[in-house]
């Protein structure tokens, strides 16, 4: 795979090939660095570029004198035989002829030690039409049999057999890598969906601070570096701060291209990376990718605090381990998902059992485990019929309602099988969520009622809040790099914070599946709950009927003894009167008065019983709905109450005003007449002055006028009213006036009465499916409003 030289004239190195040594410090950002064509190698080895056709030397690293005994100038244009000898040149030709070497370097042979120079391991690969030979010191005094490492790797791989979770698996991998390499710190570093990384496993020298659990900004491993790790299995950097050796010449004289060093073990490290390591005090690093389905899933990152040497065998063993880790990662993930799924299933089961026992939605949020344990989140909420049940960290009720309104507009909820909406950046989509990032950056929502009545939601806070960030400038002092503060990767932290602001950890597929299963559970619960409510309603209706029957029987049977009492009182009265008439009694009239009171009380009790009887009848009787002209009904009511007689009989300016013709409505005319006559009777009774001014009218549902104090349930309904200018009712008593036998005034004030009128009005209005309410002010007057929805809407006819 060849990589053409970057010839973008806007770059600091202009049209020519790049060299870290010459241009590295001119870079502004990591993402623009040509890491594949650094033009330089690490100083601990040497590199030769050979023409494939004749194996003549095209380019050589500037340090060949040290490692190979001759200056580059002496080597350029010479056949490779001059360096490796005839037998080894044959070996190279055999390898080139036999193997595809463009996907990674292969060990070719070891050059024995020569005068003053160490033995060198030689690796070969091809890149962009050239052969690349890399020479590195073996790092050992004696030759070590390959099978020692084979045994080591075999044992390590054997121990990776039964992963139970990704973390446990990665922990095992870091331990094996550290056992093989003997490095100070070995970490498994996992990339999240937003590319930021987390140390999920670590094996280290005891004296070092743990980095386990730290999160790193995405910029710490820049995009070009991540791309390279998709193509190589190991990246050694034995002396991070070591010098760099340029290729001579920098460009291939045949093609004019820079050498693509992707597969070079000696590839010179980016200035940024070496400074990054230096800032952390790291002297050497070894990095291996963990791949999953062709994507870079994570890294095995090894740090050493002194410069070291990575022998070829050690690297080969690590390569093998990282390949094994990549292969086994999936089964570890599956094991982990299975465990998560099992945990969710367990919570699910417990929720099912408890909710079946309690039959209430509260079962899902009020106890442990709750909805929140079912799915890993910061808070969870359940919405059903205008009510929220919440657990954990959730927005307040008004905010929840706004979110719900927004959610119901989501097209995702139209799906019949998977009505799920997920996001890990809610505030970016939903204006109602702006400001809620700390609670609701992530949202997983599902509906169980499409009529805007049922929602199940889980919230996640923004990641910024949930994790521990490595290199947070607030936590640690910044360490200036060799180039000053300019290039230190920690400068990227601020940018990074911006990139994760308002973002939560993403939702996984198994979490979505779990939400959908819980949705079914909640659906079942809601149905059970509705059945229970229906049962309760039936019970309530039954006991209401029984109460009515009781009131009827009780008042009926109470009348008989009452009649007896009145009779005896009457007889007492008659005989007392007779005695007085005969003037032979010693009665001074006081006894007579008492008997009179007794008689009056029995009659009062009689009228109370009559009201009770009537009230119970109002509850029991069948209503007959028909299109009724309210004008006729009101006229009847006025006639019944004798209102006109009262008015015309007084020499005042009393009036009953009907400002406009009443409509025709669907109702029981007899009962509505009773409503009006009761209200009229009250209006006539509770006068302030000698004259009464009464207004009977209505507010049409479609009129834009004020609907004073109208309850929400009356929306879309006509409102009828009877208004007087009487004594008024104190706001404190608005509720009480509707209570049976509740009187606001003395027994004989305002013409007396038993206090059943408004109670009966309320009952009659309720029987019509309507509401009744009061608007009143003491000394100003009272308006009683009521609605008569009764029959289905649309039944209303305009008066002819």
């Amino acid at each position, binding site marked *: 795979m060849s990589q053409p030289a970057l010839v973008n004239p806007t770059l600091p190195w202009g049209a020519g090939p790049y060299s870290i040594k010459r241009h590295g410090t001119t870079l502004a950002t990591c993402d623009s660095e040509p890491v594949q064509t650094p033009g330089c190698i690490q100083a601990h080895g040497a590199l030769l570029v050979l023409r494939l056709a004749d194996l003549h030397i095209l380019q050589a690293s500037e340090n060949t004198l040290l490692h190979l005994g001759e200056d580059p100038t002496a080597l350029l244009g010479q056949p490779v035989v001059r360096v490796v000898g005839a037998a080894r040149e044959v070996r190279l030709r055999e390898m080139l002829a036999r193997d595809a070497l463009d996907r990674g370097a292969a060990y070719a042979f070891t050059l024995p030690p020569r005068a003053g120079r160490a033995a060198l391991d030689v690796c070969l690969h091809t890149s962009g039409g050239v052969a690349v030979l890399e020479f590195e010191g073996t790092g050992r005094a004696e030759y070590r049999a390959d099978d020692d490492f084979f045994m080591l790797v075999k044992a390590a791989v054997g121990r990776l057999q039964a992963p139970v979770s990704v973390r446990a698996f990665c922990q095992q991998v870091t331990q094996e890598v550290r056992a093989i390499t003997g490095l100070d710190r070995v970490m498994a570093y996992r990339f999240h969906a937003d590319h930021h990384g987390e140390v999920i496993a670590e094996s280290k020298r005891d004296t070092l601070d743990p980095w386990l659990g730290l999160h790193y900004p995405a910029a710490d491993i820049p995009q070009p570096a991540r791309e390279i790790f998709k193509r190589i299995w190991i990246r050694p950097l034995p002396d991070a701060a070591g010098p760099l050796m340029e290729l001579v010449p920098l460009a291939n004289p045949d093609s004019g291209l820079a050498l693509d060093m992707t597969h070079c073990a000696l590839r010179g490290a980016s200035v940024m990376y070496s400074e990054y390591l230096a800032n952390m005090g790291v002297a050497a690093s070894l990095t291996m990718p963990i791949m999953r389905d062709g994507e870079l899933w994570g890294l095995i990152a090894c740090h050493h605090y002194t410069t070291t040497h990575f022998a070829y065998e050690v690297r080969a063993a690590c390569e093998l381990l990282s390949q094994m880790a990549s292969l086994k990662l999936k089964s570890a993930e599956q094991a982990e998902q299975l465990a998560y799924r099992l945990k969710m299933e367990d919570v699910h089961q417990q929720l099912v059992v408890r909710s079946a026992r309690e039959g209430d939605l509260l079962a899902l949020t009020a106890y442990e485990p709750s909805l929140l344990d079912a799915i890993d989140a910061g808070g969870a909420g359940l919405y059903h019929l205008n009510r929220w049940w919440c657990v954990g960290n959730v927005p307040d009720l008004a905010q929840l309602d706004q979110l719900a309104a927004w959610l119901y507009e989501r097209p995702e909820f139209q799906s019949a099988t998977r009505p799920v909406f997920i996001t890990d950046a809610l505030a970016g989509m939903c204006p109602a969520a702006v400001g809620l990032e700390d609670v609701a950056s992530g949202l997983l929502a599902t509906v169980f009622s499409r009529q805007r009545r049922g929602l199940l939601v889980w919230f996640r806070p923004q990641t910024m809040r949930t994790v521990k960030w490595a290199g947070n400038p607030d936590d640690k002092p910044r360490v200036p790099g060799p180039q000053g503060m300019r290039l230190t990767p920690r400068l990227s932290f601020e940018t990074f914070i911006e990139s994760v602001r308002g973002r939560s950890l993403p939702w996984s597929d198994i979490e979505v599946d779990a939400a959908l299963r819980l949705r079914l559970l909640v659906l079942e619960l809601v149905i059970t709950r509705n059945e229970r409510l229906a049962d309760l309603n039936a019970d309530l209706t039954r006991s209401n009927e029984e109460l009515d029957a009781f009131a*009827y029987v009780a008042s*009926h*049977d109470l*009348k*008989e003894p*009452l*009649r*007896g009492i*009145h*009779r*005896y*009182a*009457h*007889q007492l009265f008659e005989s007392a009167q007779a005695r007085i008439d005969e003037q032979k009694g010693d009665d001074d009239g006081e006894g007579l008065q008492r008997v009179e009171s007794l*008689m009056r009380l*029995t*009659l009062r*009790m*009689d009228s109370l019983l009559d009201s009770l*009887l009537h009230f119970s*009848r109002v509850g029991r009787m069948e209503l007959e709905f028909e299109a009724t002209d309210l004008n006729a009904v009101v006229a009847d009511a006025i006639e019944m109450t004798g209102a006109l007689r009262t008015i015309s009989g007084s020499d005042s300016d009393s009036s009953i005003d009907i400002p406009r013709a009443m409509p025709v409505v669907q109702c029981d005319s007899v009962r509505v007449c009773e409503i009006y006559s009761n209200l009229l009777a009250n209006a006539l009774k509770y006068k302030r002055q000698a004259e009464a001014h009464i207004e009977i009218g209505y507010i049409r549902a479609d009129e834009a006028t004020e609907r004073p104090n109208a309850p929400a349930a009356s929306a879309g309904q006509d409102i009828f009213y009877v208004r007087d200018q009487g004594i008024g009712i104190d706001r404190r008593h608005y509720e009480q006036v509707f209570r049976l036998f509740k009187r606001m005034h003395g027994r004989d004030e305002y013409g007396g009465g038993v206090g059943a009128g408004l109670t009966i009005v309320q009952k009659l209005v309720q029987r019509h499916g309507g509401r009744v309410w009061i608007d009143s002010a003491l000394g100003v007057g009272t308006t009683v409003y009521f609605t008569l929805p009764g029959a289905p809407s649309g039944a209303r006819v305009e008066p002819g």
Partner: protein
Amino acid sequence: MRLQNIMVVEDSDEDFDTVCDAARRGGILHPIVRARSGAECLRLLRGSAGNHDALTLLVLLDLNTPGDDGRDVLREVRSDDALGTVPVVVLSASANARDVQFCYANGANAYHVKPVDHGLHLKVLQDIFAYWLSSAVLPA
């Protein structure tokens, strides 16, 4: 010749006394026979059937009597050919529309509510006697 009797089906002593009081005040000479229950009423009516002198001229029926209540008595009387024509005047504590409807549908000749007010009660009873014993012509 003995006068035919008036049968009062009434379990309340006070209400029965009031009936007697009203009869006395109205100068009614017909003997008043009391039945305390619906069953007793039917037994007395059937026992005197065929005995002209013991025949009942008028039944004042309280609707809420123990055991078989006034409704049962009304149905029985109207379904018995031997008793079928005797006028039955119902007296009840309430003016329940269902009761009123039932009684007329089952052959009651009149329906009256017993007022709690003793004076009114006496007047209702005196009106009944005046109407049925003076104005109306009854089957012989």
